[in-house]
C-alpha cells in the first residue's frame, strides 16, 4: 500500500509544477522528458522486469504514432478514439512480434536483433507506403480543442502526459506486486527454474510484451498530438529505440520509478550538453547518452534507483549503529 502512496506523492508533486512560475521552455523540456519516460516505462516492463532486452522498441512508438496520425488525418476519426486505437495497435504489434519470437525460443542477442530488424522493416515500409505519406510524412490538422485532444496551453499537455505516466506507474506497481510480476521476474532470473515451478514462460513473456507495446505506443500517440507531425524517421528511427532502453537502464531497470528518473536525468544532461556546446551540436547529446550507458553498466548496473537504495541502506544502517552506540 505504501508503494502506491509513493507513486501518488510523486505524481501530485509533479502536477503542481505548471502552477509555479515556469517558462514554456521548461514545460516543453519536461513534456518531452515525460514522453520519453513513458516510452521507457513500456520498455521497462519487458526488459527491466522480464529481462528481455528489446533493441527495437521504436516499432511500438512508431505504430502508436502513425495509427493516431493517419486515422485523424486521412479518415477523420476522433482524436480520442484514434489515440485509443493507437495504443491497441501497439499491443497488437507486441502480440505479433512476441508470438513469433518467443515461440521460436529466441532469447538474448537474437531477441535484441529480431526486434531491431522489426523496427527497421516498419521504418522502411513507412517511408514508402502511400498511406503514411511516404517520405513526406503525415500532418495532423491544428485544432486546439480538447475534443481533438489538443490544448491551448503547454500546461494542459503537461498534465496529459503526466496522467499517462501516472497510469504507467500504477500499472508497473501493480505488476510488481502481483503473481504475474513475480513470475515475470522469475523468468528473467532463470527461465528453466521458473518452468520447473509451473511458470508458463512463453505466456508470461508474451503478456509482458503486449503491455510493454501498449505503453510505449501511448508515448507515440502523445507525440503526434503534441507535435502534430510524424514521419518514418521520427516514428521508427533508432533514436527512440535507444532512448526507450537508455532511460530505464540509467534510472534503474526493474524498478517503478527508474524510467522516470532516468528520463529526467538523461534529458537534463542532453540539454546541458547542447547549452555548453552553444546551440548547434548534432549528435553531442547522443554521445553523452552512449557514454552514460557504458558507465552505468560498468559501475552502477542497478542504475540511479539502485544507487539511491544503497545510499538509503547505508544511512539506515549508520543511524541504527549510532543508536546502538548511544542507547
Amino acid at each position, binding site marked *: 500500500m505504501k508503494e502506491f502512496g509513493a507513486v501518488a506523492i510523486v505524481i501530485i508533486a509533479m502536477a503542481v509544477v505548471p502552477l509555479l512560475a515556469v517558462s514554456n521552455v521548461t514545460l516543453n523540456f519536461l513534456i518531452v522528458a515525460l514522453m520519453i519516460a513513458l516510452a521507457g516505462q513500456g520498455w521497462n516492463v519487458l526488459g527491466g522486469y522480464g529481462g528481455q532486452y528489446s533493441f527495437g522498441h521504436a516499432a511500438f512508438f512508431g505504430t502508436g504514432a502513425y495509427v493516431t496520425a493517419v486515422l485523424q488525418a486521412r479518415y477523420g476519426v476522433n482524436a480520442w478514439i484514434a489515440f485509443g486505437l493507437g495504443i491497441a495497435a501497439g499491443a497488437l504489434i507486441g502480440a505479433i512480434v512476441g508470438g513469433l519470437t518467443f515461440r521460436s525460443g529466441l532469447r538474448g542477442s537474437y531477441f535484441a536483433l529480431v526486434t531491431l530488424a522489426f523496427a527497421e522493416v516498419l521504418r522502411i515500409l513507412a517511408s514508402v507506403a502511400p498511406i503514411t505519406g511516404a517520405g513526406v510524412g503525415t500532418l495532423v490538422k491544428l485544432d486546439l480543442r480538447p475534443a481533438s485532444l489538443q490544448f491551448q496551453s503547454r500546461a494542459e499537455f503537461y498534465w496529459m502526459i503526466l496522467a499517462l505516466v501516472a497510469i504507467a506507474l500504477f500499472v508497473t506497481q501493480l505488476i510488481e506486486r502481483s503473481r504475474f510480476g513475480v513470475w515475470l521476474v522469475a523468468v528473467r532470473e*532463470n527461465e528453466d527454474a521458473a*518452468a520447473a515451478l509451473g511458470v508458463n514462460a512463453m505466456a508470461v513473456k508474451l503478456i509482458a510484451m503486449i503491455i510493454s507495446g501498449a505503453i510505449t505506443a501511448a508515448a507515440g500517440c502523445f507525440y503526434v498530438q503534441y507535435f502534430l507531425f510524424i514521419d518514418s524517421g521520427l516514428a521508427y528511427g533508432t533514436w527512440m529505440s535507444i532512448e526507450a532502453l537508455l532511460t530505464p537502464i540509467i534510472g534503474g531497470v526493474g524498478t517503478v520509478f527508474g524510467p522516470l528518473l532516468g528520463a529526467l536525468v538523461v534529458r537534463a544532461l542532453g540539454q546541458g550538453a547542447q547549452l555548453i556546446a552553444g546551440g548547434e551540436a548534432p549528435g553531442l547529446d547522443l554521445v553523452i547518452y552512449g557514454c552514460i550507458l557504458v558507465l552505468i553498466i560498468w559501475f552502477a548496473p542497478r542504475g540511479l534507483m539502485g544507487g539511491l537504495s544503497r545510499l538509503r541502506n547505508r544511512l539506515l544502517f549508520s543511524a541504527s549503529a549510532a543508536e546502538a552506540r548511544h542507547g
Partner: protein
Amino acid sequence: MAEPLLQVERVSRRFGGLMAVNAVSLAIAEGRITALIGPNGAGKTTLFALISGFLKPSTGTICYRREDVTGEAPYRLARRGIARTFQIVQPFGGLTVRDNILVGAYLRHTTRDRAQEVVEEIAGKLGLGPMLDRPAATLTVAGRKRLELAKALATEPKLLLLDEVLAGLNPSEIRDMMPVIRALCQRGIAIVMIEHVMQAVMSLAEHVFVLAEGRIISEGTPSQVAADTAVVEAYLGHGAAARLGGVHAH
C-alpha cells in the same frame, strides 16, 4: 504394488551416437521414497530431465496417474504435481529467499496473502525462517539446498524428484536434512532421490533402482541392492565382487 503414481515404460534418450538412457522402465508408488543410484555418467540426471519434461524421450512413454504425459512441457508437469530440484542449484539469485519460494507458492494460490502464508509455513519447516528477507545469493550451500527444496515444495507436488540434494553438505548438515526428507514422505509426497551419499540411501529409501550406462541393472531394497554383484561391479569395476570376496550374487 497399488496403482503406481509414475510409470516409466521403456524410455530411451539418445544424443547423437550416445544412448544416455536405454530402455529404462520403472514404477514409482505413491508416498514412498525411492532412490536412484549409479556411477557417474550413468544417466540418472538425464532420466530426471526426461520425467520432468526438460528433455523428450527418443522412444518410450511416461505415464503419471495413468495419463500419458510423454513430452509435455516442464511447466505443465509441474502443474500436474511433478516437481524437481536441480543438481546444480538454480536459485533466483537477484531475489530474496521469500520471493524465491513465492514463485512456487503462486502455482497453487493466486492471492499474495495466501501465497505468503504458504511461504512462511514452508520456510519454517525447512529452517529458512530467519533468512526469508535476505537475497538468495547470500545463502550458504546448505541454505541453497534447503531453498531449492522449499521452492519445489511450495508447488505442493505429489512427486518430488531430488537430484543430489545432499551433495556438498557436511555430515552434520546431512544429518539435519534427513528427517526433513523423511517428513515429506510422511505427508504423502512420493520422493525419488538421486544420491551418492550411501548412508542416506540406506536409511531413507524403501526401494532402490541402480542405473549404469543408461540401463537399470538392479532394483530392490537397499540391502538387496548392496549385496548385488552387478551393482558392486558397476561401481568398482569388473571382477571387483570376486576380489572383495564373501559377496553373494543376487
